[in-house]
């Protein structure tokens, strides 16, 4: 056998072997692996030989052959800084996504930043293929012989594409954040975007003016951050929003008691929550969830509804939680409208029991 394996999995296995095997033993064992594969191919056929090759590589992961771990620690101090920074950004993304469901005073800035982070998990996925391509070019660049000239053009081009995608997505989002979450959230978002663009432009210039053989970590960010945002949205938002919903429902009990007391004494339900203040309730309670808006009260003919909403997904989905003794029947969920505020009338497309009597939650787009 005078060639390297063609199969991608085999090449990957070989790359893993080269990484963990002690350099002193690498050449002879790699040769044995390839010779063994060649013999197995003739004996059992290519597919089985490939399986045996993978198994052999796995069974080579032994302390004696790794010998000591020092050669595995190839991460330089600068790499370490990049990895810590990447880890910090991942953590920040997760915190921003789940923060609207944490206990605390209602905060539109938190909701705005969370929806931006969630967007990273949707439109941001466009950055992943750019990141993958970029990593391939980076890998090739790092492996080039030192006498060759550094090929900085692919990195330069891909960094420009990434900047255009980031700018495009976020520019669409600025007016939406301004409309839904207010000027503060929009302002912070603009500042954040300017900072990212400033860093990106400096970085793009540096690629061209000071080309380096060192591995650039930017494509790793482009891959990892959108995936982290997507996974957080997929696996964390549901359980944590159940928790915040239940807590907000519990906080509203005092309000419902006050409304019923008002009805018993006055013979009718209050026109607004404000009209109960002083005699029936000291202060209108807050939900005590950062991403949950204040309670909304609607007087009906001889009944009332109490509602609050929380974002489920920064791109489109909002959850409307309603206390209603006569909830709409399931077949009417589609087209069920609830006027949330002066901008938005939500249309529910699915409804679920919230686990507390008379409380249901509806997913709205």
């Amino acid at each position, binding site marked *: *056998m005078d060639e390297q394996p063609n199969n991608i999995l085999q090449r990957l296995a070989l790359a893993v072997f080269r990484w963990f095997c002690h350099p002193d033993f690498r050449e*002879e064992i790699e*040769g044995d*692996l*390839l010779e063994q594969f060649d013999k197995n191919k003739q004996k059992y056929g290519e597919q089985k030989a490939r399986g045996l090759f993978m198994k052999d590589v796995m*069974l080579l992961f032994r302390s*004696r052959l790794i010998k000591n771990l020092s050669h595995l620690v190839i991460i330089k101090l600068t790499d370490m800084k990049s990895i810590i920074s990447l880890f910090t950004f991942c953590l920040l993304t997760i915190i921003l996504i789940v923060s609207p469901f944490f206990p605390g005073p209602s905060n539109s800035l938190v909701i705005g930043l969370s929806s931006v982070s969630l967007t990273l998990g949707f439109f941001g996925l466009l950055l992943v293929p750019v990141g993958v391509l970029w990593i391939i070019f980076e890998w090739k660049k790092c492996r080039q012989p030192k006498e060759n000239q550094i090929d900085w053009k692919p990195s330069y081009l891909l960094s420009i594409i990434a900047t255009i995608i980031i700018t495009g997505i976020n520019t669409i989002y600025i007016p939406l954040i301004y409309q839904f979450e207010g000027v503060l959230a929009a302002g912070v978002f603009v500042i954040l975007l300017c900072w990212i663009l400033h860093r990106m432009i400096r970085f793009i210039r540096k690629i061209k003016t000071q080309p380096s053989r060192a591995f650039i970590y930017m494509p790793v960010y482009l891959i990892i951050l959108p995936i982290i945002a997507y996974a957080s949205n997929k696996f964390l938002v549901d359980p944590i929003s159940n928790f915040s919903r239940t807590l907000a429902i519990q906080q509203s009990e005092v309000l419902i008691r006050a409304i019923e007391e008002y009805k018993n004494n006055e013979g009718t339900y209050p026109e607004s929550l404000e009209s109960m203040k002083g005699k029936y309730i000291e202060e209108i309670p807050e939900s005590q969830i950062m991403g949950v808006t204040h309670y909304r009260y609607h007087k009906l003919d001889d009944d009332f509804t109490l509602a609050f909403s929380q974002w489920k997904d920064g791109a489109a989905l909002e959850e409307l939680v309603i206390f209603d003794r006569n909830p709409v029947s399931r077949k009417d969920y589609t087209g069920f409208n609830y006027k949330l505020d002066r901008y938005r009338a939500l249309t529910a497309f699915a409804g679920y029991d919230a686990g507390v009597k008379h409380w249901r939650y509806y997913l709205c787009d």
Partner: protein
Amino acid sequence: MGEFEEIVLLTVAILNGEAYGVSIIEEIETKVDRNVSLGAVQTALKRLEDKGLVNSAFGEATKIRGGKRKRFYTITREGQKILIKTKDQRAAFWNAIPKTVMS
């Protein structure tokens, strides 16, 4: 010395200068009729070398094996002594078995 190390050392002696990873595996599989992994053989060889029971040296680079050189192992004087000692010890055990047991 463990049982597998002993088998590997014996195989190195049998192959007489032609012992390297793959040839040792083939020889063991033929003689003992059991599957042996490259990892197990290489680990045993490194242990034997650390104990001074085998020596090793790279062969010439060839076009086969992706151009990777073979590392050939040969048994040392110390290795030979250990094998003889082990053989004698085993023989002593065999001789100690009452004839009625093995009849």
